[in-house]
């Protein structure tokens, strides 16, 4: 057993003491008047600023939110039971900050940066304030690079670019988190040397879990770990049992983490799961602070709550380093009501929505994306040329299919053209179905969509479409891998590659065994 000599200990202590400065300390104080429900009313603190961090006894911190004539309202970032009436509150003269940097990757932290995964302290000396002003117009540039989510339906028809805000909205249990997790897992390929060769920058991810069950968050972390995604991801956990103030600031902490990468010329992705719970936590805080309630009892500035969060996701101009922060906020609707207060607010802030419908989910279409009303306002700018070529007709075909869907019941009484459209549409819908945690690389997506839109599936029964897709892609990978390589490198579908794909598929078609 190793022994520590007493003089070693003294030497260490002396070293620690050497940096210690015995100066007169001047600080401002106040007294707790009232405490409860995560809120404390403090008398005094006459010089305190709004959103300043204040220190309560027993290592509890709080943030000043209400500055009133005779008292100050603070929210507590810790256990209310550790504070009692009459306690002294100290000003810290700084705003709430979060540790940032590469050291945060792979960790699970709480919204104020304290690790909760039991892997020890985080060694970083970089701190950024949680609340930061979003950048102005000049510092930004338009979204140009794609953020591949690995989900065919999204990357083809509702493409997301780096620096965009795309809302994922749907009822409970409709697959919102699944899309987000798939997007994170798909970024694994951006961290390989292969990606560097192709000129694809790595994407660092932040997953913010607000108000969710701790078991769900644990499952998400396990899933990310399993797929090797934790190496480039940080998880911020503000579970349902955390006090409302922590749930309220969690998304801002996530944005701060992402901004560190953005400001250093790198790309980052942040997922807020979900903002409806953050709005509810903020409503709880505001009501306890006696701020006047507005529509649906939300305070008057609930729009500002979300807008200042989402404005921080942007693509920076080359002068600023060219980094980007993409945001995927998630909103849960009640019974598909997208015209409720919070959903409409966030829809108007983001650059597009992905609608998930329970009816589609129950009908077996998973991901349950309603392509008709989902939109991405960045669109083609965020797609590689190859995908742009094939995706145009995909959207059109599906739109035509949807229009005629109601007539599908009258199978025999329809004319040939209608029947063809219905058949093609059904096969396309089947093609777009995807399993959980199975992101598809973009080159395979392009080929799959090409096959679907060019009528090669006509002779394949609907039930076999997925199997056909899998087998033909395997076939091409084995025999004609240069097709995929060419799409990867050129990012375009040249005429010769198109011919090669045609030839490959025609070669495979007769070999495919349909299930009886």
């Amino acid at each position: 057993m190793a022994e520590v000599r007493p003089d070693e200990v003294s030497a260490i202590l002396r070293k620690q003491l050497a940096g210690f400065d015995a100066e007169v300390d001047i600080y401002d104080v106040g007294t707790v008047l009232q405490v409860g429900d995560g809120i404390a009313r403090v008398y005094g603190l006459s010089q305190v600023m709004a959103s300043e961090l204040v220190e309560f006894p027993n290592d509890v911190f709080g943030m000043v939110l209400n500055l009133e004539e005779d008292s100050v309202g603070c929210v507590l970032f810790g256990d209310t039971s550790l504070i009692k009436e009459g306690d002294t509150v100290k000003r810290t003269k700084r705003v709430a900050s979060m540790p940032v940097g590469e050291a945060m990757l792979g960790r699970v932290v709480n919204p104020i940066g304290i690790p909760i995964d039991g892997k020890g302290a985080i060694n970083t000396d970089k701190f950024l304030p949680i609340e930061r002003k979003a950048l102005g117009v000049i510092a930004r540039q338009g979204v140009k690079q794609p953020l591949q989510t690995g989900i065919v339906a999204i990357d083809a028809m509702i493409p997301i670019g780096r620096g965009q805000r795309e809302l994922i909205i749907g009822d409970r249990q409709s697959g919102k988190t699944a899309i987000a997790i798939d997007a994170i897992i798909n970024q694994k390929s951006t961290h390989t040397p292969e990606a560097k060769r192709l000129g694809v920058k790595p994407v660092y991810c932040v997953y913010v879990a607000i108000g969710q069950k701790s078991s769900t968050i644990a499952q998400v972390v396990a899933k990310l770990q399993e797929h090797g995604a934790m190496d480039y991801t940080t998880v911020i956990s503000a579970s349902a049992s955390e006090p409302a103030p922590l749930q309220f600031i969690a998304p801002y902490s996530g944005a701060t983490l992402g901004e560190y990468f953005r400001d250093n010329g790198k790309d980052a992705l942040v997922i807020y799961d979900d903002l409806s719970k953050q709005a509810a936590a903020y409503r709880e805080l505001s009501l306890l602070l006696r701020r006047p309630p507005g529509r649906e009892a939300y305070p008057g500035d609930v729009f500002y709550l979300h807008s200042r969060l989402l404005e921080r996701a942007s693509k920076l101009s080359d002068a600023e380093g060219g980094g980007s922060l993409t945001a995927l906020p998630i909103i849960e609707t009640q019974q598909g009501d997208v015209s409720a207060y919070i959903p409409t607010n966030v829809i108007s802030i983001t650059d597009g929505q992905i609608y998930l419908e329970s009816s589609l989910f129950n009908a077996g279409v998973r991901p349950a994306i309603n392509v008709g009303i989902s939109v991405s306002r960045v669109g083609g700018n965020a797609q590689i040329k190859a995908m742009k070529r094939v995706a145009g007709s995909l959207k059109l075909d599906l739109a035509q299919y949807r229009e005629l869907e109601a007539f599908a019941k009258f199978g025999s009484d329809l004319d040939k053209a209608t029947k063809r459209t219905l058949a093609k549409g059904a096969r396309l819908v089947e093609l777009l179905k995807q399993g959980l945690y199975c992101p598809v690389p973009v080159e395979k997506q392009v080929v799959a969509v090409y096959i679907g839109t060019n009528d090669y599936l006509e002779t394949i029964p609907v039930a076999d479409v997925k199997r056909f897709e899998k087998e033909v892609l395997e076939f091409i990978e084995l025999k004609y891998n240069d097709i995929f390589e060419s799409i990867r490198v050129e990012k375009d579908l040249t005429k010769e590659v198109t011919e090669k794909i045609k030839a490959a598929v025609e070669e495979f078609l007769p070999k495919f065994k349909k299930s009886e």
Partner: protein
Amino acid sequence: MSDLNIANRYATALIELAEEKNSFESVSADVQLVFNTLKTSRDLRVVLDSPVIKRENKFSVLSEIFSGKISADSMNFLEFIVHKQRENLLYMIMQRFLSMNDIKQGIVNAEVKSSVEFVDEHKSKLQKKLEEFTGKKVRISFSLDKELIGGFTVRIDDTIIDASLKHQLELLKEQFLKGNTSLN
């Protein structure tokens, strides 16, 4: 309306009245007297707070205690307060009057706590230093607090100037516990 607002209004009214009638010093002295009485006598405060006791009785108590000791104007003011049913705020009104007066005259109150008694020479030195620091006249009240171990603390309104050994030891403890990560 909050109590503080109400007390402020009455105190302001009294100040303005006193200035008008040019009897500021005597009113000031009267207020100080009433304030001290209320401060030391809990019973009097309870009586004024109580909703059970009739107004007339409350006023008769006040007039008996203070008649002959305060001016007629001040007595009228007390009657006025009772008439307006704000006698429960009398203590706060007096308090606000005195603090407004202090602010007007540029005086701040400083509470000094020390572990050992201050020597006179140090007292005047401290006075000068504090007046330099605040830029105003300082009225110091000294008291002892053994818990500080050494040194002293000065409290001016909400600001504390802490030169005590206890605080330095606390900071030292924090420094050791901080280790590598900090919430800074």
